[in-house]
């Protein structure tokens, strides 16, 4: 997955959750970051805006880490062909 996409996802999480950017890595789990399910929907909302995609509900239920999020976003962006 591109570093650019990883960077953008982490930036969105940092901004949405007001967590210092340097505390988040691609390996972080939501548990480590103290994120609950409501935080998760907030982040998904911001990621949809950032990447101009629509994330299906069923794709979101198993996500527990930043890595999973990056992977899922990568697939959706590739499918939509709108990564810019």
């Amino acid at each position: 997955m591109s570093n650019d996409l990883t960077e953008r996802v982490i930036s969105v999480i940092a901004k949405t959750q007001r967590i210092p950017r340097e505390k988040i890595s691609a390996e972080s789990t939501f548990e480590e970051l103290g994120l609950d399910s409501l935080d998760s929907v907030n982040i998904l909302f911001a990621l949809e805006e950032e990447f101009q995609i629509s994330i299906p509900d069923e794709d979101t239920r198993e996500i527990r880490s930043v890595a999973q999020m990056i992977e899922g976003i990568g697939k959706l962006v590739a499918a939509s062909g709108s990564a810019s």
Partner: protein
Amino acid sequence: MGLRRVVITGIGVVSALGHGRAAFWEALREGRPGIAPIEAVDCSQMRFRNGAEVRGFNPEAHMDAREAGFLDRFAQFALIAAREAVADSGLEFTPALRETAAVVTGSCVGGQSTQDQGFVDLYLEKRPRVHPLTIPKTMANAGASRISLEYGLHGPAFTISTACSSSNHALGQAFWLLRQGAVSVAIAGGSEAPFSMGLLKAWEALRVVSPDTCRPFCRDRRGMILGEGAAMLVLEALDAARARGARIYAEIVGFGMSSDAHHITQPSMEGPARAMRMALSDGAAPPEAVGYVNAHGTGTPANDPTETRAIREVFGAHADRLAVSSTKSMHGHALGAAGGLEAAATALALHHGILPPTANFTEADPECGLDVIPNVARRAEPEYAISNSFAFGGLNAVVAFRRWIGM
């Protein structure tokens, strides 16, 4: 177990009269209105420009940014007022108290601004999605739930939505729950934050908002002025309050409610009279021992003469010895928070022995010929007072208070 007596031991207020109970009381005592041009919404294309907004409010002075983002303005107000009330009461929530402590709030429109923003995003901006917290921020019980969370209270918590009577219905339910011994303590009141474009346009369409200010009971009154804010009271059983040496503002002795079953917006005389009578009889308060009425007093053409007639109907000749004021002339009509603000005003009036005036008063409407304490507060120590709330939909709720004289 007999009925318990219920007293007010803490008061918290956020209103157009300032942040906190002290600022609220100071403005009421001085007869100083918090009515000014509306800042939250561009009203240049509206038939009214003035409102009673909470000015200079920064939620992040009270909670961290993340928390503030989880709450609509009306729920932020509720939480802040509850914190002030609890701190004021000096109450410590022990595990036993928490088990059955109640939170009962009133709100007419809940997270209106959040919902409005969602509609702007969808219909105007043509965005494909609204903010994911739109539901939990909009729900009318968001304030009650957040207060429960704040102190870990596990007793009954709920929100009543009966338009402009919401808070009085909430206070009445909390009072009755406590009186019958069903709960250990209650935080009760109401909150509202109605300054969104969508809601202001709806009020404009109804043609009841004044283009200048709120002059209840005056010949030249031109309607109501919308307000916002929150007021929360800590209610305790008298024995418990005494046992811990709490300061007591006033006693709540009775509650009455009724439905006009008459018209969806036009008030009736009988419905409000019925609710006042019920509050007095529920509190075993002799009408001639009542010295102060905090009126619904919206300043609309319809309410003020009807309320005057209802007061005359209930009190008979004693009506001419009653002091009646509308504090909405200062804090505006805060809809679902109105009864909360006015209960705080009434309790503080009894506590300090000072009756707040009807501000902005010019000349009496002959159809509203009661003593409305024009413009200047008055020293008086009535034994009993009542606070009226009458809602669109014909729903009336009246709370009866007794001055605390140590017994």
